[in-house]
């Protein structure tokens, strides 16, 4: 019991403290500017592009880009949560900690998950009002687990990027490339009818299955039909979480072996 509480404490308190310390955007202006305004403005761009070309209705672009809104927090957040330790030179002290690695790093992801939920809710709320999108209560209810699965899986993806960032020379390069790939390959902005075959590689990325699920919902799919999408989305997330843990363990071992803890 005591151990469980202590682990929970590490996850929640440790995670929150690390979030305050390592997330670059904790000032109100930056938070609003980058996390709330940026996804919303990108959404608007694609809604207008869609209207001009007449290829899909507003609902398609609003829901797809709402799912994508999570990517910004999770990708950059995950990168900062791990990689900023290196920038600030605190990584050595973290790796010396006797606590379990899994709880330590999962704690790092938790604040970003909460943050992403806020961002997604905000993006959906504002864009539904601005673009006058109709959503039935049933549809809205079905969207909740879809968004959650996407956020969790994308946060795991972010941790993987952060782990890569420990070794990469320029940590934000991986984050920027990943964010671009999510924009291109998740299918949030290209309707299924126009989606070329090679973009199926996007299925190995987080959010792709959630985007597909939102389309299924607007096409009238019932809860049972959504389960495969949710399952795949979470499976992808689990895959990235496992990869992140393996990478972190490998890097930790490697840096101890070579005695380069601080220069990881």
């Amino acid at each position: 019991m005591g151990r469980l509480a202590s682990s929970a404490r590490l996850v929640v308190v440790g995670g929150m403290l690390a979030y305050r310390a390592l997330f670059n955007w904790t000032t109100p202006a930056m938070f609003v500017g980058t996390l709330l305004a940026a996804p919303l403005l990108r959404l608007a761009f694609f809604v207008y592009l869609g209207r001009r070309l007449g290829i899909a209705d507003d609902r398609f672009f609003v829901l797809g880009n709402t799912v994508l809104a999570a990517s910004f927090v999770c990708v950059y957040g995950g990168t900062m949560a791990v990689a900023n330790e290196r920038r600030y030179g605190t990584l050595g002290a973290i790796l010396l900690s006797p606590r379990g690695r899994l709880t330590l790093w999962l704690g790092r992801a938790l604040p970003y998950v909460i943050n992403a939920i806020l961002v997604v809710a905000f993006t959906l709320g504002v864009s539904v009002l601005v673009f006058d999108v109709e959503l039935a209560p049933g549809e809205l209810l079905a969207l909740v687990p879809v968004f959650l699965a996407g956020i969790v899986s994308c946060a795991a993806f972010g941790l993987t990027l952060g782990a890569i960032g420990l070794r990469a020379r320029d940590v934000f390069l991986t984050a920027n490339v990943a964010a671009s790939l999510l924009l291109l390959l998740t299918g949030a902005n290209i309707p299924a009818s126009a989606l070329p075959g090679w973009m199926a590689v996007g299925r190995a990325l987080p959010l792709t299955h959630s985007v597909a699920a939102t389309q299924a919902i607007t096409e009238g799919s019932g809860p049972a039909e959504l389960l495969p999408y949710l399952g795949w989305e979470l499976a992808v997330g689990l895959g990235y979480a496992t990869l992140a843990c393996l990478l972190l363990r490998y890097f930790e071992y490697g840096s101890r072996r070579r005695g380069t803890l601080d220069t990881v």
Partner: protein
Amino acid sequence: MSEPRPYVERVGPYRFLRLMAIGVRTHVLYMSRSPLQLGEAVVTPVVFATLAFYLFRAGGQGDQLLQASVGAGLMGTWSSVLSGSGAAVQNQRWLGTMETLVAAPTPLVLTLLPITVSTALVGSYSMAATLLWGVVLFGVPLTFADPLIFVVALLVCLLALGVVGLLLASTFVFLRNANALANSLTYPIAMLSGMLVPISVLPEWTRPISWVLPTEWGTRAVTTAAGGGEVILPMVMAAVLGAVYVILALLALAHVQDRARRAATLSLV
């Protein structure tokens, strides 16, 4: 007490050109050695171009592919100017060079202008990459109404982008996370400038904002030069508005520099 040498007394045309040339050389060299900026320069145009081609094709606008190509290229360029200006200013803080730039006996605007011109130059690579990408993978024909005018219009548009970048960069000087703010401005300015999405589909109330953006006139010049139509007027408008933006940037910098000296924000990371 030694007398100041006449070379620094006034910034004449000769010194201005030297400052620009050496500044652009320094910053292009620095950016070209940054894996981050190189990576972005390679990936961003590919993403914009691919999205644009599939969307235009799906919309049955296959005949508009050159416009899609040009629009996507401009978006790549703009995104590079914006993130480049933001990153450049942020970089000076991280490197600790901001204070040495401000303490120099050269007006800060002449130090920043080469930085944004460099980002526009690096960004113009985006246009080339996008056009090439279109030709190779999507068979977009490069049938410009007038290739020469297109190149001229593109240069004017690059200057317009650089000038808007300058105005933003001057306000970034005292913001801590300048590059983060830059992220949120990519899409709205691209949209209001009519890159890929014509401003006619935007709500009526946004029209006046578009009209005062030199980037809107620059974009208009480039797209009409590619497809045919009146090019001179938009080019002139872009140039005139560009000059106004330089003056605005000067005013903003004077204010910002004063503020930075008051509030001691220069060396904050």
